[in-house]
Each structure stands twice: as C-alpha cells, then as structure tokens.
C-alpha cells in the first residue's frame, strides 16, 4: 500500500509516524504541519550533486513559540522521530532547507521572527531564529539606531541565527559572526530551556553583554551541532562609523598571491585593516560582468588564455583584493597611508577606491557587503555554469603566502580532472585564511553532477591528507569531514550527544554526530 507520506524517518513505522503527526497537529495548527509533496517541495530543493530523495523530509513543522517546541521534542522522544532545525533556511550550497537524512522532520523556525531587543547604547540585538538580515536592517533604519549589520553574501534572505549557528562569516569588522555572539536560549532534547552565559541567572541584565557567565562556556557546543534547538540569540552590532573607505587592489599574476597575503597579514593582526580581506580570483568575479559562453564552449575547464581575455575585457585583476577602512576621517587617513605604502612597495598593485571603481558592479556589491547593506549580486556565480549546482569547498590554513599557490594548484588540478572551473577566493580572517571555492556545476546534466560529486570527494580527501581541515560542509559530506578530524573528537561529540539527547531526536547526522 502506498504511504501517505513522501518519506518516513529511518526506523519509524507509518503507524507511529501517524501518531506523531496527529500529536504535532494538536500542538500546532493544522496549516503548520506540512506533509504533502506540494507543501514540502520548497524543503527538498538543494544545490548538492545527490538525488533529492536522499534528503527528502517526511514533514515540516512551523513552530512559533518556545512552548510549542518543548511539546514537539516531547512527541519526538515518544515516537523516536528525528527533527532537523532551520531558522531562515537559506543554507545554500551547504544543504539549503533540506534535512541531513531522508525522512527527518524539518522544524522550520522562520515564523518565529520577533526582534526582541536592539539596544542602541550597548549595540546588541536579541532575536528569534526566523529574523532575516533584511528585517533587522529595516528595523534599525526605521528606529534610526545607527548600527551596522554584518552578514553573508545572501544577506536579505538569510538570517543571523542560522548563519551564526553554522559558524558563517560576513565582511565587516564583525564578520567572524560567532565571535560576536552573546547569549543563547536553547530548548534541550529533554524539553528543558537553557539560557547560556549570564542568561542562566535570574534578574541579570548582562545576558547580551558578557559572554562567558560562570563555569564551562556552553554556547560553542550549540553551533554546527545537534545538541539543542536555539530559540533566542544575542549578538553584538557595530556602531555606524563616521567614515567608511572601501577599496580594491588588483594584481595581474597568480603568483602575486604570495606577496598579497604576506602584505595583508600584519595589517590584519595589528588591526589596521579591521575586516576580513577577500582575495577573489578573476573567475570568482567574472560572472558579475561576463558570460562563460562568450569565452569558451564545449566540455572541460576554462583555459588560462580565456581567463586572461576576461581580465582584459572586464578590467579585472587575476586577484582582486577587497577590504575597507572604518572610523573617523582622520583615522582613515592615517591607516590609508599605511595600507597604500604596504601594498605600493613592490609596484605590482593597482589600488582603486570608490573614486575609480564606483561604476564597477563587482566593487559595488563588495562595498555593500563590507558595510552591511543588502545585496544578492553574488548569486551571479550561478550564471557561470548554469543549472543550479553548487557546493562550497572551504579548507582552512594559516594566513601565510606560502599556503596559497600549492592549495590553488591542487584545487585547479582536481577541478580540471572533472572538467570544472576554479571559482575561488582566499579570505584572510586574522591569523587564519579560508580558501573558499564554489564548486559550480550543471545539476541538470547527470554526467556533470556525478563528476561534481567525485570532484568534491577528492578535494576533501586530498586536502585533509595535507592537513587542511574544512570549516563547514554540505549535508552530503558531513560524515566524511567529521572523519578527518580524528576519532577522539568524534567520540567526545558522541558522548555529549548521548548525554544531551539519548533518543537521538535532534538533527542526527549534523556534523557527523549521531
């Protein structure tokens, strides 16, 4: 007999699932428990090169209160039904809104979207999971609070809770988002509600201003994790600076990246440049201005000669270094001198500011990201190959020039083996450097999809063999990445999981933890 569900959770009978769904309906209204194929369609689409069936949810629950979530976890414990949490659900290139495993019930917190507090003086916010950056941006503008957001490139449609819980990054001086998180409320698998840090103390008003509280610091264990459901989230906002100076520095040769990183590192560590510096390859920038089909046709990765032509035609460097200065005009003037002297030394850098680059669409969107303005221009990346396939490959290294060329060569070599292009950038955080490569492929082409899967698998294998760990990965490869961090970490993660969620109802499989 055909099931009335499009998928079932692993090991749960239809009868038990029926009972669970009936109980969910008692807690939520009928229209907040979704089970039909049509209702679940937006939870199924991913950019990953695996069959949608592997990540098809059995249901989605649209909760709006903490109390409802407590009741939902009680039902999940009773029927051993696993849930997968999303806040704004735009984890694009990492699994989108689909669960890690087929049959998990998506707990969609998008409707829980109250901005609970934004304090102008202390520059912090406390929000619920469904708040988008756009919503918070509008609120700050409407109330003239003079605060800036830091957000990832999908800005308007994503949100601070989901992004930070997955340890995402942005482009202002507050861009390492989890560094600026301060206090969470978490519904645990046993239904208890934990407020981390100072939030545990009755009558305290320091929840959003002092991160550590007393005793072991707990917030970290709720990021990239499945130990609890975050229902409130505090974080710090940047006061709007009196002046802002974005700039781009272009270089013409791939080998120049060594000099670029050596120049940036001291400026970042000393704080002269206060935001993470993006060093974008021409192929990462090209889609904003150029069409791949104008330069190359047929299978295989794009040849260097075509990349050269793109650079010339569209005024791109092979490396395009984006950063900004923030502060009073006097501070900026002093730091600008230091920056231009440092980059000017070798004579290879072409330094452009708003004066020269105001009409350049790549510069315009990067500048917006660096001051927390909404833009989705980076989605141009997907016009390069077409077909909507994407996985972020994100290994971490030391911020040293010597770490760049060998990583780039290895990445290019593996991508080329599978006929894919190198759409990459290096981001100098402070002492660390993320190498971010968008593995773009045509998901409507089964051959390319298969190649993309194998390519990503090989990238992970080869990079981890050389000691490069991945900071975050899509749901199809979480086990593989967890494995690269060794058995002891996996065992500790598992021990915590058992203690906090003995029935394994919260997002089993997240970060390879079950």
């Amino acid at each position: 007999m055909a099931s009335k569900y499009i998928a079932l959770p692993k090991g749960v009978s239809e009868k038990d699932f029926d009972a669970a769904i009936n109980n969910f309906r008692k807690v939520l209204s009928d229209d907040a428990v979704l089970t039909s194929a049509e209702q679940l369609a937006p939870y199924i689409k991913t950019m990953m090169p695996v069959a949608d069936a592997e990540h098809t949810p059995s249901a989605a629950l649209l909760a709006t209160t903490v109390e409802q979530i407590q009741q939902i976890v009680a039902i999940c414990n009773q029927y051993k039904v696993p849930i997968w949490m999303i806040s704004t659900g735009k984890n694009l290139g990492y699994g989108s809104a689909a669960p890690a495993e087929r049959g998990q019930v998506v707990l969609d917190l998008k409707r829980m979207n109250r901005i609970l507090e934004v304090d102008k003086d202390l520059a912090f916010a406390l929000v619920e999971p469904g708040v988008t950056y756009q919503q918070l941006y509008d609120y700050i503008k409407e109330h003239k609070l003079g605060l800036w957001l830091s957000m990832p490139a999908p800005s308007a449609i994503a949100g601070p809770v989901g992004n930070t819980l997955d340890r995402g990054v942005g482009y202002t001086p507050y861009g390492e988002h989890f560094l600026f998180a301060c206090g969470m409320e978490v519904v645990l698998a046993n239904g208890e509600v934990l407020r981390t840090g100072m939030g545990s103390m009755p009558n305290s008003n320091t929840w959003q201003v002092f991160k550590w509280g007393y005793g072991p610091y707990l917030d970290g264990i709720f990021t990239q994790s499945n130990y609890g459901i975050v229902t409130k989230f505090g974080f710090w906002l940047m006061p709007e600076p009196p002046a802002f100076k974005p700039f781009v520095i272009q270089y013409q040769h791939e080998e120049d990246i060594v000099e670029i990183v050596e120049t940036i590192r001291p400026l970042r560590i000393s704080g002269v440049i206060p935001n993470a510096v993006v060093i974008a390859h021409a192929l990462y920038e090209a889609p904003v201005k150029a069409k791949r089909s104008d330069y190359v046709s047929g299978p295989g990765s794009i040849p260097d000669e075509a990349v050269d032509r793109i650079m010339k035609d569209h005024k791109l460097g092979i490396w395009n270094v984006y950063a900004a200065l923030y502060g009073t005009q006097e501070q900026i003037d002093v730091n600008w001198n230091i920056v231009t002297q440092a980059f000017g030394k070798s004579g290879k850098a072409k330094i452009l500011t708003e004066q020269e680059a105001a009409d350049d669409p790549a510069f315009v969107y990067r500048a917006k990201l660096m001051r927390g303005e909404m833009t989705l221009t980076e989605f141009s990346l997907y016009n390069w190959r077409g077909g909507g396939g994407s996985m972020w490959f994100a290994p971490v290294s030391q911020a040293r020039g010597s770490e760049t060329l060998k990583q780039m060569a290895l990445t290019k070599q593996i991508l080329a083996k599978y006929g894919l292009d190198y759409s990459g950038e290096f981001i100098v955080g402070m002492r660390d450097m993320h190498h971010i490569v968008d593995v773009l492929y045509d998901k409507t082409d089964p051959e390319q999809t298969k190649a993309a899967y194998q390519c990503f698998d090989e990238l992970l294998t080869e990079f981890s063999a050389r000691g490069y760990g991945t900071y975050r990965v899509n749901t199809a490869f979480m086990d593989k990445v967890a494995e690269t961090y060794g058995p002891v970490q996996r065992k500790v993660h598992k021990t915590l999981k058992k203690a906090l969620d003995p029935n394994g109802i919260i997002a089993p499989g997240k970060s390879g933890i079950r």
Partner: protein
Amino acid sequence: MKEIIRNLIVVFGFMPIIIFLATTWVWAAQEDNSASSHRWKDGAEIYTKICAYCHDAQVAPPIRNRKLPLDYIRNIVRNGNRAMPAFRPSEINDESLTKLAEFISHQSSQH
C-alpha cells in the same frame, strides 16, 4: 495544556517538567510583548525585499510586466528554478504569494 503536561510526564518523568515549565513561565513573563515581528505589507514589498535583488539587478532575468501566469510564478517561487532558491510558506505565505504573483504579473496596472 493538561494533555501536553501528561505527554511530557510520559517522556521525562515528573520532576524536571515542573522545573522547566516553571522556569519558562518566569521567562515568558519577562518577555517584552512589544517585540517586533514580521508580516509582509504587500506584493510590492516582497518583490523589493527579495526578488528585486536578483531580477532587477541583472543577476536573474527581468520578470515584471511580462504577464507571466500567476500559477507559473507561484510554482517557481515554491519549487525554485535552477539556482533560484525555493521559498517556503513560512517565508511567504500563500496569501502573500498571491499578492506577489499579481504584483509581478500586472505591476504596471497598479501605477
């Protein structure tokens, strides 16, 4: 509520429930009721704050004033299309989606 508590007791045993419900109530009482939640005003707002960032920015094809069928728009919004993400009813509910589809399809007649 009674039924819920019974449910919770089955799963967790009696003591912890009393404690956590009690604590939740204390916090609920502290919560600021004036907190700002979100509702879309109209189709134009949704268009401006989501669609326009790509469709009016040369990232995705223009879609306004093309008399695209409402069902087609609804379908693309819910299912996504290639790189365009799908949007869930929790983000844009069915009523708002209809307003959005009308705005996209017949925008010029509204001005």
